[in-house]
């Protein structure tokens, strides 16, 4: 039942460290809290296992719904199942925010793509004309 997971991927230490230290300074604003190196590794590892745990649970839910692709709904249900339901609300808000931010991005990107395609077409046409000219000339 235990899945052997490759040891390759770890979460970036700097980010984990930042999250931990910011919370610590919130917990005890009066004095500085330090984090032992080993402790940071333990945080990273724990977070990584959490991803696996949540991922596996969400995956099961997804399969049960006879779908191939794990989606947001599966993740939310999984959170409830592993008793992290207090995460659901902030995650929902975070996702909504992200979508809003990227809605603008997508429009820009598709505009860029269209422009590029136009330019490429223009280039190809010119090239073709040149070649034709060479042949006839």
């Amino acid at each position, binding site marked *: 039942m235990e899945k052997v997971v*490759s040891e390759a991927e770890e979460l970036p230490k700097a980010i984990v460290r930042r999250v931990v230290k910011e919370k610590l300074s919130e917990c005890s604003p009066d004095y500085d809290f*330090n984090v032992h190196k080993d402790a940071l590794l333990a945080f990273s590892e*724990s977070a990584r296992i*959490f991803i696996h745990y949540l991922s596996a649970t*969400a*995956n099961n839910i997804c399969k049960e719904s006879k779908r191939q692709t794990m989606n947001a709904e599966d993740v939310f249900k999984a959170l409830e199942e592993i008793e992290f339901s207090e995460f659901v609300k902030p995650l929902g808000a975070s996702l909504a925010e992200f979508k809003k931010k990227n809605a603008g991005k997508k429009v820009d990107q598709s505009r860029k793509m269209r422009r590029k395609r136009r330019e490429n077409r223009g280039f190809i046409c010119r090239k073709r004309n040149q070649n034709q000219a060479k042949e006839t000339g």
Partner: protein
Amino acid sequence: MDSNKQAQSSSYPPQPTTFSITHPPNSAAIAGTPPVPFHHLLQQQQQQLQMFWSYQRQEIEQVNDFRNHQLPLARIKKIMKADEDVRMISAEAPILFAKACELFILELTIRSWLHAEENKRRTLQKNDIAAAITRTDIFDFLVDIVPRDEIKDEVGLGGMVGATASGVPYFYPPMGHPASGGPAGPGGMMIGRPAVDPTGAMYAQPPSQAWQSVWQTAGADDGSFASGGSGGERNLDGQGIGLVGVFVFSKCLGCGRVYFKDQLMTMAGLVGDCSLIIVGLDVWSVFPILLSCFDANTGQRHC
């Protein structure tokens, strides 16, 4: 008289006298009349400055939010994919995982910090994390990750943080059952005092220093701890995984004697020879609040 006045008016420059004519009713009058433009402007400016800075602060906080939400999505995806069962992932999933990870780390940090505080340390160590994992039901999946032997039984109970308000129930981590095996059996490692002797040390003194009231210091964590409490409840009924034999007790508000919850047999509260006056349940509706207690046989009040 007139000559005096004239003498006065000639000695003073004309302007002050005109001022003194308009001024005398002083501040009251000024408030009544249309505000002196200068004061008004100053106020306005101050307000604007305040608004400006509070807006700046908000912006900074928002930017921080985005910066924190920076666990690399690709990395997360790779971690997820390491599990062969996981095939296709929608685009939204890694985003959710990134935020969930962050929240998870925050939870773990708070609880580890608690342990470090209890032991009067200002450096978070691995054993703090191990302790947090053991204490929290929902972290059971981590129990093998941070090895148990990392948990050190540290400073004696004497130095615990803060005398908590009497009557606040204490959550006492599992004792006994050292043979209960399995990685989840934390037998006596926590604040591992053998002082789970209800008859002995308990009655001697209010053990307010003995156990840190987890809920008090958890602060923003109240939600999760409440569920931890109910998790404890579950275990008391013999169900649930993880913590075994959780002892929870209530302290008598009158004399400070402590009574173990499992021993409180009825709402009337009979524990051996002692009768308890129970005034109700605490805010989590889990633990009885004891007003006073007395000897059931002699009828003599302890407090």
